[in-house]
């Protein structure tokens, strides 16, 4: 069991995680392609901290979230949860431990079984959280209220609820087993702007109430910065920059972070937004998509600061200052 004492105690740590996917090439050839989904990712999550992971689609953040939650064994590295290596445990113990890391998925439509009512889903989750039978009804009502839903919706089916309501149900389900860590994989990306704001507000409120660390994943830098304490910028399976969220937002160091920042639509400076063009060269984007990790720096081909030295050898994540890390030699 994990003891929650004092800040600074690391509850979840990823050490040098690698994950590859194998593709078959061509019709009859048995030659196999290897795609590197996650390359040497290490991060640690202290108590009470929200870690935000930003990156484009395809950068490996969903894979990383599944590995962290215990659903997908990595090909290298360890996931240390409560000081135990998650994937070294036997199947039964893994199942028990996994309950304490909950995952909220992106798509509110496929996250709920269309044949089961909301009440059934919540009560089933509560039963898994070892709530005695007599208290089920009451606890279900209170959990639903705590995410802002009317307990009367227990008899509804998912197709009768809107996207925002479904997402609330999913969050409620995750909270039923009293998790120690909550991973959220793009929970608001498919929702409308107003509902997004409500769900973000809900997440903040839950964070204050329950005091558990979050890992918040999104491709929208604004939202991640708003919600997290530490940001990690991910690109093609690697973490390129890491640091306290506002610092990274106001003063990004890595060229990719600068690109992400420039892509945030600015209300005040319209002409400037569309004219600014820090890095993108379309030709190289096309090429870099087909590369498959041959360069030591995965961002090399799109970078506006690239130089000869970037190709010389593997680039490590080095620390700059007290709490920032960066993977670039041109800073």
């Amino acid at each position, binding site marked *: 069991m994990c003891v929650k004492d004092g800040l600074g105690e690391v509850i979840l740590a990823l050490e040098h995680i690698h994950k590859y996917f194998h593709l078959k090439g061509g019709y009859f050839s048995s030659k196999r392609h290897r795609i590197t989904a996650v390359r040497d990712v290490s991060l640690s999550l202290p108590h009470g901290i929200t870690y935000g992971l930003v990156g484009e689609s395809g950068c490996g953040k969903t894979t990383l979230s*599944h590995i962290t*939650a*215990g*659903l997908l064994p990595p090909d290298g590295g360890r996931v240390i949860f409560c000081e135990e290596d998650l994937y070294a445990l036997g199947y039964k113990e893994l*199942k*028990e431990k*996994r*309950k304490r*890391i*909950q*995952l909220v*998925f*992106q*798509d509110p*439509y*496929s*996250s*709920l*079984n*269309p*044949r*089961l*009512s909301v009440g059934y889903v919540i009560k*089933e*989750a509560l039963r*898994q959280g070892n709530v005695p039978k007599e208290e089920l009804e009451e606890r279900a009502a209170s959990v639903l209220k705590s995410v802002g839903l009317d307990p009367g919706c227990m*008899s509804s*089916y*998912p*197709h009768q609820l809107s996207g925002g309501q479904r997402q609330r149900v*999913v969050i409620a*389900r*995750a909270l039923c*087993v009293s998790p120690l860590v909550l991973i959220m994989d793009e929970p608001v990306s498919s929702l409308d702007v107003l509902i997004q704001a409500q769900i973000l507000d809900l997440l903040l409120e839950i964070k204050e109430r329950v005091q558990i660390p979050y890992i918040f994943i999104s491709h929208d830098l604004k939202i991640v910065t708003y919600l997290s304490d530490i940001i990690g910028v991910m690109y093609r399976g690697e973490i390129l920059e890491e640091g306290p969220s506002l610092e990274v937002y106001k003063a990004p160091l890595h060229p990719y972070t600068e690109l992400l920042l420039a892509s945030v639509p600015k209300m005040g400076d319209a002409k400037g937004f569309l004219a600014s063009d820090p890095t993108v060269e379309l030709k190289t984007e096309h090429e870099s998509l087909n590369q498959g990790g041959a360069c030591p720096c995965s961002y090399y081909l799109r970078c506006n600061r690239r130089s000869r030295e970037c190709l010389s050898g593997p680039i490590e994540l080095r620390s700059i200052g007290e709490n920032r890390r960066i993977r670039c030699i041109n800073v």
Partner: protein
Amino acid sequence: MRMGEGYKLIRNDWVGFLGLCLFLCFLGISVLGLLLTRGSEPILDPKKVRLHEKLKPPMCKASPETIANEKLPFGRFLLGTDDLGRDVFARMLQGAYVSMSVGFVSVGISVLIGVIIGGISGYYGDRNIGLITFLSLLLLIAGIILIISSNRSLGLLLSCLGVISLLLKKTRFLKQMDRQFIDVDSFIMRIVDIMLCFPSFFLILTVVVVLPPSIYNIMIVIGVTSWMGTARFVRAEFLALRELDFVKAAKLLGLSDMKIIFVHMLPNAIGPVLVSATLGVASAILVEAGLSFLGLGVPPPHATWGNILSDGKNYLFDAPWLTFIPGFTIMLVVLSFNLFGEALRDMVNPKLKS
């Protein structure tokens, strides 16, 4: 809530509703038929031979001596008589029960086997079977087949070898050789492919000839040789469902595999299975009719729609009703099952793709 929605849906879809009504009618008729024609003194006697009344067309009046001896509805033979003077109406009623039960039971068996095998293949598909496990399973299966085909001693030997090696698989000696060989999904699918290689009707024929003729054997045989389609459907649905978020969420909650399969995945995968099952009922009735046509079905004098058809083939021009009436009835039953099956699919699989 679900059934209420389903009821409304069927009311709007009158074709499916019609199918459902017909289906229920036939169910009723088969039960009624069983009651009316069984026992030694049944109300409507399918066995009674009246040679003086043979080959009478439908709705013809019975001769006075027949009316004197027994009671006939309206004093007529409602659907005529066959070449032995037996009442076709009574025989059809008796046959209804057989045909419907063959349809249901065999489909029930095939769906059961198909769901289990397809479910295992779809859910556990990427687990690997070790070499030793594979070989011992092969030995076991070979042994069982040999036992069934009366080669007892060799069969017993092989199956014992298989069982022993399965039990000893965990020991140090064999564990090293038990490396990953083939995954569960491929293994099961190859078995399905092997089963599919046999033309099913011939497979049924072979088994029916070997086993003693009885209605139960036929049901089991049809069931055991037609589960492959269902297995493939279930496997396909499971492969897709496995990647959906709610299944991953259920795993994260720590639910047991059995619970995930039966409570979460199966109700969502059942759509195509239901449709295939209703079509399967129709096809099972036809298979039984075919077997009876060839003389390999339920033994006489018990009537089935198939053997009424079969007997009628000799009198196709003299007494066409002997062939048309059972043929038309089979067509009606198949049609009603088809219509109902389609409505059922719409009713049962609504909002998975929302």
